[in-house]
């Protein structure tokens, strides 16, 4: 290894600015006066919501972009002028790592070894180490296009590591990856740092990953909001983090909504069957009457608590309508699937799953990319034909009367599917009409949507120009216009920042309280806590079904007395549960 500069920095940025020109408008300022340092032998996490500037910063470091102002140096080389030297000493993994899908694992490794000029004689041992680290040794002959999402990311990492880089730049390497592979990826990175002493800069929007970093930089709207060790962040909220246990497990969402509406509460989230709060005031016990919850305890802060307290976020007033007497918790089954199957040629996307969803419940479909969630979902909405099995939605048999069933469904697609050039109001009008609303009724519903989703101020803005969170609101508003009995949400929070996700779940919660049945897919395991009932999918089968509490119990061991849904998923995927085949009831 070549000598590092004295203070052991592998990356230094000073007053770094990056503007992207826009036609006929002021340039977008992606980074504004960013100064930070990354040290060797450490993992530095770059945390922030979408559009915070994380990717831009990494690309500047890799020499893929030129700074507008300021300086960025990697390994004491100037990124603007010495990019070739940097590129032969740094491993960079873009968000969507460009593996050649038609090439095998080995051929991809060979290509990057050739491009990085790895000498022939050291290749065998290098390959052996990387393949062992990534568990890809049995798959060297498989084409990259046929690997699972997690394996692809591991191969991408192996390619970035092919020349023992002195620094590693990783851009959200774990997005859409199953929890097992996510843990593996972090283990590999940690191993590299401790064994080879390299410096790592890793961008992430998963707040729970931040606690695995040695140092954290919080970016917001292109500016550094805060930086420090995880402990320093924890200190900021120490003594202000509490857990509330609800009187009954079913009341947890009500408790969360009640807490979230309080002025003194900076953040309220459901975690492992309890509501985790960051509060402003000193005495937590005075927040709510004692009868509203069973137990309160103080807890050790984590980075997420600090982040939520740090980020200024709009308060969401979304208390469920108390005047409505308890909605019909009747045993009304609204969606019923029996032995549901879907095959594409000889590929089985979904192999015989069964489930029921009751009225007014939130049903979550969980699983990594490629687990069969989206296919199941499309069958439920009547967007894809069913290969075998029975399915009924709101009393309609989807194999026979798809069109009529659709009138009772609201659907929010994964990608933003509204007309970008049309204004918020026109989008609402169009979707309202296409669901058969007109005249006074249409007007009423649009008024309702503008108020309910707080879109009135932006009603004349083109949908494409809305800030991220508002796009999501508009998409949900269009799905709710015709007052559907069932709301289908496909990865609604994918790509949304943690604040928008909180707000989003509060709204969903509110609709469920009003008796709307919600079916939602997500790859964020922690969001499962907001559901009444879960189905965890993997490779087209259901690994487990049940309430979040029941699922968590599957992973309870003496070592992990208080497991999360993610722990449960990993245990299920590795076959470590006490009762793998049996569905939790």
């Amino acid at each position, binding site marked *: 290894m070549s000598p590092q500069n004295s203070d052991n920095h592998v990356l230094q940025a000073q007053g770094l600015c990056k503007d992207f020109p826009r036609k006929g408008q002021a340039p977008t300022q992606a980074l504004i006066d960013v100064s930070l340092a990354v040290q060797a032998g450490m993992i530095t996490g770059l945390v922030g919501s979408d559009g915070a500037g994380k990717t831009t910063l990494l690309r500047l470091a890799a020499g*893929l972009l030129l700074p507008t102002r300021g300086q960025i140096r990697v390994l004491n080389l100037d990124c603007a002028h010495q990019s*070739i030297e940097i590129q032969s000493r740094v491993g960079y993994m*873009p968000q969507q*790592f*460009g593996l050649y899908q038609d*090439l095998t694992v080995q051929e991809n490794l*060979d290509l990057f070894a*050739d491009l*990085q*000029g790895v000498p022939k004689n050291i290749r065998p041992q290098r390959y052996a180490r990387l393949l062992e680290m990534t568990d890809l040794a049995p798959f060297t002959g498989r084409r990259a296009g046929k690997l699972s999402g997690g394996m692809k990311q591991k191969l991408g990492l192996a390619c970035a590591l092919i020349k023992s880089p002195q620094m590693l730049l990783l851009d959200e390497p774990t997005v859409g990856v199953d929890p097992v592979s996510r843990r593996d990826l972090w283990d590999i990175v940690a191993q590299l740092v401790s064994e080879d002493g390299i410096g790592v800069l890793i961008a992430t929007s998963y707040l729970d990953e931040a606690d695995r970093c040695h140092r954290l930089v919080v970016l917001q709207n292109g500016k550094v909001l805060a930086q420090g060790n995880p402990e320093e962040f924890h200190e900021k909220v120490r003594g202000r983090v509490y857990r509330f246990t609800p009187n009954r497990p079913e009341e947890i969402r009500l408790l969360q909504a009640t807490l979230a509406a309080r002025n003194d509460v900076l953040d309220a989230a459901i975690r492992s069957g309890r509501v985790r709060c960051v509060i402003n005031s000193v005495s937590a016990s005075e927040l709510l009457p004692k009868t509203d919850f069973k137990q309160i305890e103080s807890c050790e802060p984590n980075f997420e608590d600090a982040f939520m307290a740090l980020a200024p976020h709009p308060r969401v007033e979304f208390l469920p309508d108390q005047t409505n007497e308890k909605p019909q918790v009747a045993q009304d089954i609204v969606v019923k699937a029996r032995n549901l199957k879907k095959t594409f040629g000889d590929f089985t996307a979904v192999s015989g799953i069964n489930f029921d969803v009751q009225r007014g419940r939130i049903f979550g479909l969980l699983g990594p990319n490629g687990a069969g969630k989206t296919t199941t979902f499309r069958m439920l909405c009547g967007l894809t034909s069913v290969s075998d099995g029975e399915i009924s939605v709101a009393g309609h048999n989807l194999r026979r009367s798809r069109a009529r069933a659709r009138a009772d469904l609201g659907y929010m697609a994964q990608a933003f599917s509204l007309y970008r050039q049309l204004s918020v109001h026109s989008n609402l009008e169009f979707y309202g009409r296409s669901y058969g609303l007109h005249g006074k009724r249409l007007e009423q519903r649009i008024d309702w949507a503008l108020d309910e989703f707080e879109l009135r101020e932006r009603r004349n803005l083109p949908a494409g120009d809305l800030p991220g969170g508002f796009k999501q609101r508009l998409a949900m508003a269009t799905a709710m216009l015709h007052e559907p009995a069932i709301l289908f949400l496909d990865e609604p929070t994918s790509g949304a920042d943690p604040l928008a996700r909180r707000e989003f779940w509060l709204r969903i919660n509110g609709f469920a309280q009003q008796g709307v049945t919600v079916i939602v897919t997500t790859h964020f395991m922690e969001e499962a806590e907001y559901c009444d009932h879960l189905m965890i999918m993997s490779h087209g089968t259901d690994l487990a079904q049940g309430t979040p509490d029941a699922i968590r119990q599957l992973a309870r061991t003496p070592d992990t007395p208080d497991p999360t849904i993610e722990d449960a998923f990993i245990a299920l995927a590795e076959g470590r549960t006490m009762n793998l085949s049996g569905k939790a009831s």
Partner: protein
Amino acid sequence: MTMNGSFLMRLRGLLRKEYLQIIRDPSSILLALVMPLIMLFLFGYGVSLNPTRIQVAIVTTESSPAVNDLVARFELSPYFAPLFVTSANEAQKLVSNGEVDGFINIRDGFTRDLVKTGQAPVQVIVNGIDANRARLIAGYARGAIEKWRELRRARGEQAAYAGVQIASRIRFNESNESRFFLVPGLIALIMTLIGTLLTALVIAREWERGTMEAILVTPLRLHELLLGKLIPYYILGMLGMLISVAGGLWIFNVPLRGSFSLLFLMSSLFLIASLGFGLAISAAVRAQFVAAQIAILAGFLPAFFLSGMLFDLESTPRVIQWVSHIIPARHFVAISHTLFLAGNITSVLWPAAAALTVMAAVLLLIVRRKLSKRLE
């Protein structure tokens, strides 16, 4: 390791990757090797610029030996499939309905006039919607009448009418086979497709799949990236060219009167210009869909319409002729036609080759300028 060694290692890595991608991706093989054959057959057998068995009506009420002789000329001709009517009105209606392409009006009193004055006009009416076809049909009709006159003269019968003797001979394509003309032009089209469309697509695909970003952050140099794309698609394009030439020579018996090495050399020049254009497109746009649109609009269609491979450039407006000079395919079609049908005629070949060289150089320079290892 030496600079040279790592250069070769990177280039080899890129070439091997491209080779594996090509052999595993059926679409590029299809486009490069199967499509030339399909186009060859399509143009060789399906498209013919020589109409035969043209439907015409012959208007006649007489049946004298002179008229019968004349009618027989049409019946025996491979070009005509006549049917008979008795009035010009009837024939006109058939033309209007599109049932016949024209009619030959042998007026009442034809024989009488012929005997009396030695002059008997025959009226030929042709549907002129397709001007080229109309001219051909009129020419064929004139040819048939001429044959009849010669025959009469040979038999010593009176057949004089005043006027010029028309003696035409078609040069270079004596049998007037349109495929002799089409096949050499087709090579230009096939190489445009491989050079421009395929290249533009494969690079745009690398952008879309994110592989470009991954290889840009390696210590790869730009000229290596360029060579890594030029070499494989040059080879693929020349293979397509060889297939078309072989098909032309042995399936359609097109003569090759010039030298093959000159054809190979000048095809290479043209292919490099096409590759340069494809690379320039892909340096400018990063989406496969847009790249394909531009390649077709700015590469394929001009090569089709303005190269002279199908449509005569001499008859187009002056401005279009000027514009056609900036299209590489136009120069290559001139080269290809000359080498196949005329021979090594330097006065045509060298200026065209010089034009191609300049274009290839300019396009590659533009690519080198536009291409950057940065994402901006």
